[in-house]
């Protein structure tokens, strides 16, 4: 196109070799569902970054409490309410890790010097002199644990309920769906608060309370999928070969809707993290000396004016976790099931 003067002569061409074997060759490696999904997730930079952030946070949640010499529940009132100080970063004044705290009226205090404390508390200490670094990561551990188990139980109940309801059909389906409709009409705030009041706060009661209402959306999604698959050929084939109902549902149908199940679970994790923190914040969270991100924020909030770092650090961590999980869930949804975009 650029040079019209170029003469294209006949001898520049040469007949192609016809090879029947090669014409059927698949040049691109054939990918299964998961490889294909991974390729699409990988293109979503936000999701990939979030994935690394989440892995990092999980590692820190497991290792964090061990990294510092102080235990999360060890009190040392002489070292109470210290600001964060990190070796090496303490001389960089604009970073919040220089061991100083500025009062509301702009006065700068140096509690490490005035109290002659040699130790370094990376995230500072709380009102009882417990190391915030250990507490924050211990809290992250507990929050992630609660969220993970709540999501897992949601998934198990929701998948089973939805699959049975859709597969059996008829009267059973209709009754089961009416039950779901009633449950969906009750705000989960009310259910969770009442359940915690009855069960008393603790890790397992919180997981149970979150699971009671959490499974309904999963049940609805799975039921819709089962209804879709029910009359398809592969199910008919399995039936003809004498497969039992259980193996049709769990061996043939569920693997086909794994994408949707995973997306739904991924969305219920941040939801559970939020609710756990929310319960702590209204005074229904874990009891001392246990810590979750919610209780840490709640404690930090009480002394926010004097020692903002006690609230800001757990607040930032919970926000990062929530953002990361939401972005991963969005990315997975786009990759696994583009139709489900909201």
């Amino acid at each position: 196109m650029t040079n019209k003067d170029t003469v294209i002569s006949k001898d520049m061409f040469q007949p192609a070799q016809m090879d029947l074997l090669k014409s059927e060759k698949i040049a691109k490696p054939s990918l299964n569902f998961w490889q294909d999904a991974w390729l699409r997730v990988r293109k979503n930079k936000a999701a990939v970054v979030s994935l690394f952030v989440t892995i990092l946070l999980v590692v820190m949640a497991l290792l964090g409490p061990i990294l510092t010499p102080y235990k999360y529940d060890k009190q040392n009132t002489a070292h109470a309410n210290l600001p964060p100080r990190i070796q090496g970063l303490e001389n960089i004044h604009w970073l919040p890790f220089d061991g100083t705290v500025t009062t509301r009226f702009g006065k700068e205090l140096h509690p490490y010097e005035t109290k002659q404390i040699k130790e370094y508390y990376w995230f500072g200490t709380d009102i009882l002199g417990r190391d915030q670094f250990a507490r924050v990561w211990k809290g992250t551990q507990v929050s992630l644990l609660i969220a993970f188990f709540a999501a897992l139980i949601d998934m198990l109940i929701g998948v089973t309920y939805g699959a049975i309801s859709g597969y059996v059909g008829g009267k059973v389906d209709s009754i089961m769906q009416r039950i779901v409709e009633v449950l969906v009409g009750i705000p989960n705030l009310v259910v969770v608060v009442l359940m915690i009041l009855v069960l008393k706060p603790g890790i397992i009661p919180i997981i149970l309370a979150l699971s009671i209402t959490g499974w309904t959306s999963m049940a609805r999604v799975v039921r819709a999928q089962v209804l879709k698959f029910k009359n398809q050929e592969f199910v008919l084939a399995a039936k003809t070969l004498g497969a039992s109902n259980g193996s049709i549902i769990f061996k043939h149908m569920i693997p086909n809707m794994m994408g949707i199940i995973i997306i739904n679970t991924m969305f219920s994790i941040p939801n559970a993290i939020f609710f756990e923190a929310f319960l702590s914040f209204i005074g229904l969270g874990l009891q001392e000396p246990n810590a979750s991100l919610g209780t840490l924020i709640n404690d930090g909030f009480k002394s926010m004016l004097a020692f903002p770092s006690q609230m800001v650090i757990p607040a930032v961590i919970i926000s990062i976790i929530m953002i990361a999980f939401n972005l991963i869930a969005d990315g997975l949804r786009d990759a696994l099931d583009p139709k489900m975009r909201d």
Partner: protein
Amino acid sequence: MAKYILQRVLYMIFTLFIVVSATFFLMKLIPGTPFSSAAKLSHEQLQIMIDKYGLNDPIPVQYFHYIVNMLKGDLGVSFQFNNTPVSQLISDRIGPSAILGAQSIIIGAIIGIALGVIGALKQNTWIDYTSTFIAVLGKSIPNFVFAGLLQYYVAVKLEWFPVMFWKGPSYTVLPTIALAMFTISITARFMRTEMVEVLGSDYITLAKAKGASFFEISVKHALRNALIPVITVLGPLAVSLMTGSLVIERIFGIPGLGEQFVKSISVNDYPVIMGTSILFAALFVVVILVVDILYGIIDPRIRISGGGSK
């Protein structure tokens, strides 16, 4: 349509009945008496109190009384707050919560719709990415974290607005923003998706071919149609406002329903907890019903396709 509405109303009543019963029986399962904080009461006084509130009656009798009184609009009296009737306690406190809720929904919806529309019109530009980023932040950051940070940095550090309490319009600014974050993010996300879809449809191409201006296309043709499905986000919004009101009213010291609820939880004031729970459930159920009916009325396509059931 009438049949559908009737059916939905019946569901609604049944759901509320379940909530009322469940609340009642769950409260009965809680160990400890509501008078535990009043340690100075003698044994006789305690008995008098328990008899007065009928706490020694068999549970089915108490349940029956509770349902009958509820139908009369009597939710019992508070154990902790000077024997105030629960219904009065609620009506005294609903004002600030309602103002806060209304303000945050209106402001949140306007900002959210604007962000979503701009994002869709300027797809894949930095404007779009910024609006998506704001939406992700609003959806992810827990509202009490956001409220706490807002209170610390804007009210305490910058001193732009009052830190807490409820004494005038300027006091509502920060709580409204904190409560509106979720509304903004959810409407922005929804609006963007709808708007992108509408902008790609044939009638927009036709409008363009006919020479309609950019403004006419985006506002008259696209926005109006994209707005319809946004009504469905009202359900999740109602939930977020309820949960939000508990924590945000606590943070900003607002004398609303949420703050009352949290306080009642901490002092085991069963009648108030029950009354407020039932009110929350009722509000939620009504919102869902209204959304479903409104949706049928506003979107002619649904009305036509559902025409046979009229």
